[in-house]
C-alpha cells in the first residue's frame, strides 16, 4: 500500500460572479426618509409588471385605481396588500389600561381567524372580501392584481387574483457538464453550548480532502465552493447585557471568532468560500445585512478565496444563478402566515417576486428611496434559505420552463447536516456528520 501516491488530486474550479451590489448600502445616504419611499418603489415596479401581465389574464376588464372604484363595476385593481392582524404585537399595548399582571405571552404565530386583507395604492385603500384571497396565505407587502367589484358595503369582493409569478429565467448553456458540487452549511453557532467543534472540524476535513481514501478524496476534489449561510457565531447573551465587561470577559467575546477563523483558514486554503451574516452574527440588524468585517477573520481574510458577503446573497457559479438568505425572511413569513412546509414559503416569495415582502412592516429593513433591492428580476437556478429546522428540498417548475432548486438548509449545530448540490443536474443530497461513539 502506497502512503503517498505520485499524482496529486486537483480540485475542480468554476468561475464566480458576485451579484451582491444591489444589497450594499454603503452608497446610500440617510436624509430622514421614511418607509413610504421603499413602498412606492416596490408598488411602481410591481405595478408596471402586473399591468403588462393583465392583458394576458383578463383583457376585457378595465384597470382602475382604488379611488376610481364604483359600486358594481367589475374591474381590476393593483396595489399593495396589507393584512390587519388582531394578534400582531403593537407598541400601544404597553400603554393599554387593561394591562394584566401576567406578562404578555408571545405566540410563535400571530394569525387569527379574524384577520382581513386590505388593498392599498397611492389613492386609497379598500377592504377585501370574498374567499378567493385567503388571509392565511398572504402577508403585508405583497403586490397583486385583483379582479372583482365593489360591494354596497364599500368593500371589494375579490373574484380572482393575479400574482406576478416566477420571473423569467436566463437560459443556461446545455453543454454536458461534469459533476461539480457546492456545499451549503448554516447555523454553525460557534460559541454556543450546543455547538460541537468536532462536527465542524469533520466537515472541514472532509471538504479539504483530509479524510478518507483516494476515492473519497476524489469526491471531495469535485467540491468547488462552500457557502456558509449565516449564524456562524453565537455570543452568550450574558455578555451582551449592556454593562461594561471585565477584561477577562472581553476575551470571551472574541473567542468564538478566533475559533471560527481557525476553521475558515483551513477551508480558505483549500477552496473558495462565501460567508453570509445571520441574525446572531455581528452585522447590522436590518436587511440587507452587510458583509461581516474582514478584521474579524485575520487569518482567513488574507486568502483571495475568502469572500464576506451580504445577506441576501446572489452570485453565479459557471453561469448558474444562486440566490439565498440566512432565514430572516422565511422566519418572518412563518410568524405572519402559514403553509404546509418551509418550501411553500420559498415558492411563494418567488411567485410574488419579492424576497422579503414583510420588510419593512415586521422585518427590519433599510429605508431605500429609489429602489427595492428585494425584488427578484431574474429567476435563480438555486434558491436557498439557511437556519431552518430540517433539510428539505424541491425542484420547482415554472410555467415558462423555469427550473429552480429550492433548498432549506438546517442548522448545523443542531443537526450536523450540510447540503451538497450537484451543479450538473441541480440534484441535492445531505451530508451528515455524527460524533456519537456507539458502544
Amino acid at each position, binding site marked *: 500500500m502506497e502512503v503517498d501516491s505520485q499524482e496529486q488530486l486537483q480540485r475542480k474550479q468554476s468561475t464566480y460572479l458576485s451579484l451582491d451590489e444591489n444589497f450594499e448600502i454603503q452608497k446610500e445616504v440617510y436624509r*430622514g426618509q421614511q418607509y413610504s419611499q421603499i413602498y412606492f418603489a416596490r408598488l411602481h415596479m410591481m405595478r*408596471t409588471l402586473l399591468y403588462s401581465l393583465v392583458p394576458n389574464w383578463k383583457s376585457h376588464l378595465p384597470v382602475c385605481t382604488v379611488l376610481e372604484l364604483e359600486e358594481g363595476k367589475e374591474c381590476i385593481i393593483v396595489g399593495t396588500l396589507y393584512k390587519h392582524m388582531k394578534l400582531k404585537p403593537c407598541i400601544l399595548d404597553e400603554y393599554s389600561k387593561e394591562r394584566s399582571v401576567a406578562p404578555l405571552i408571545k405566540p410563535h404565530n400571530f394569525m387569527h381567524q379574524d384577520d382581513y386583507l386590505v388593498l392599498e395604492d397611492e389613492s386609497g385603500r379598500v377592504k377585501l372580501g370574498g374567499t378567493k384571497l385567503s388571509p392565511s396565505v398572504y402577508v403585508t407587502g405583497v403586490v397583486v392584481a385583483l379582479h372583482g367589484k365593489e360591494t354596497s358595503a364599500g368593500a371589494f369582493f375579490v373574484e380572482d387574483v393575479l400574482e406576478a409569478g416566477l420571473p423569467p429565467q436566463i437560459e443556461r448553456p446545455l453543454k454536458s457538464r461534469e459533476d461539480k458540487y457546492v456545499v451549503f452549511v448554516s447555523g454553525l453557532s460557534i460559541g454556543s453550548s450546543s455547538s460541537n467543534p468536532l462536527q465542524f472540524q469533520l466537515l472541514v476535513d472532509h471538504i479539504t480532502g483530509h479524510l478518507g481514501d483516494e476515492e473519497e478524496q476524489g469526491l471531495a476534489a469535485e467540491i468547488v465552493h462552500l457557502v456558509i449561510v449565516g449564524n456562524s457565531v453565537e455570543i452568550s447573551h450574558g455578555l451582551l447585557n449592556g454593562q461594561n465587561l471585565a477584561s477577562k470577559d472581553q476575551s470571551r467575546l472574541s473567542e468564538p471568532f478566533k475559533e471560527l477563523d481557525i476553521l475558515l483558514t483551513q477551508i480558505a486554503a483549500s477552496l473558495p468560500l462565501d460567508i453570509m451574516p445571520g441574525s446572531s452574527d455581528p452585522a447590522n440588524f436590518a436587511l440587507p445585512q452587510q458583509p461581516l468585517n474582514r478584521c474579524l477573520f485575520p487569518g482567513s481574510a488574507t486568502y483571495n478565496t475568502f469572500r464576506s458577503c451580504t445577506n441576501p446573497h446572489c452570485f453565479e457559479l459557471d453561469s448558474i444563478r444562486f440566490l439565498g438568505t440566512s432565514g430572516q425572511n422565511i422566519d418572518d413569513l412563518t410568524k405572519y402566515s402559514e403553509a404546509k412546509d418551509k418550501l411553500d414559503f420559498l415558492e411563494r416569495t418567488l411567485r410574488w417576486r419579492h424576497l422579503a415582502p414583510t420588510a419593512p412592516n415586521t422585518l427590519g429593513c433599510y429605508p431605500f428611496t429609489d429602489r427595492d433591492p428585494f425584488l427578484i428580476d431574474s429567476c435563480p437556478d438555486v434558491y436557498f434559505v439557511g437556519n431552518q429546522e430540517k433539510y428539505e428540498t424541491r425542484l420547482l417548475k415554472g410555467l415558462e420552463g423555469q427550473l429552480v432548486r429550492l433548498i432549506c438548509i438546517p442548522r448545523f449545530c443542531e443537526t450536523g447536516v450540510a447540503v451538497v448540490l450537484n451543479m450538473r443536474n441541480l440534484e441535492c443530497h445531505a451530508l451528515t456528520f455524527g460524533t456519537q461513539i456507539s458502544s
Partner: protein
Amino acid sequence: MATTSKNMNVFYRQKKNSSASTGKKSTKSPSPKHAATFGSDITQPPALVCHGGSLDLKDDFDEQEQVLRQFDMNMAYGPCVGITRLDRWERAQRMGLNPPKEIESLLRGGKVKLESLFDGRV
C-alpha cells in the same frame, strides 16, 4: 431693585380715573392697532411673529415655488417627505414617469428651495 418710593411712578402708567359722569356715553374706541381681528389690515401682528425680524411673506407666494409645490404634491411621483426635490425628480425620471423638464431646470437653476415643502415641518 431698590428704588425710592418717589420713582415708583415711572413703573406704572398713571391713569386718570375717568369721571363717572352718567350722561356721557363713551364712544367705542377704534379696534387696537395690532389686533388680528376682522377689521384689521395687518395679517401678522408683530407680537405673534417670532422670526427674527424679517417677514417672509413674499417667498411663499413665489410663482416658481408654487410650481414646485405642485410637483411635490403630485402623487404619481411618490412621497415627497424625506427626499430632496431634485432626487425625487431624478428618481421619477429613472422610473420612466416622465416628470416635466421645466422642474429640473428650475431646480438646477439654484434660486429655489431644494427641499420639499414638508421639510423640517414633519
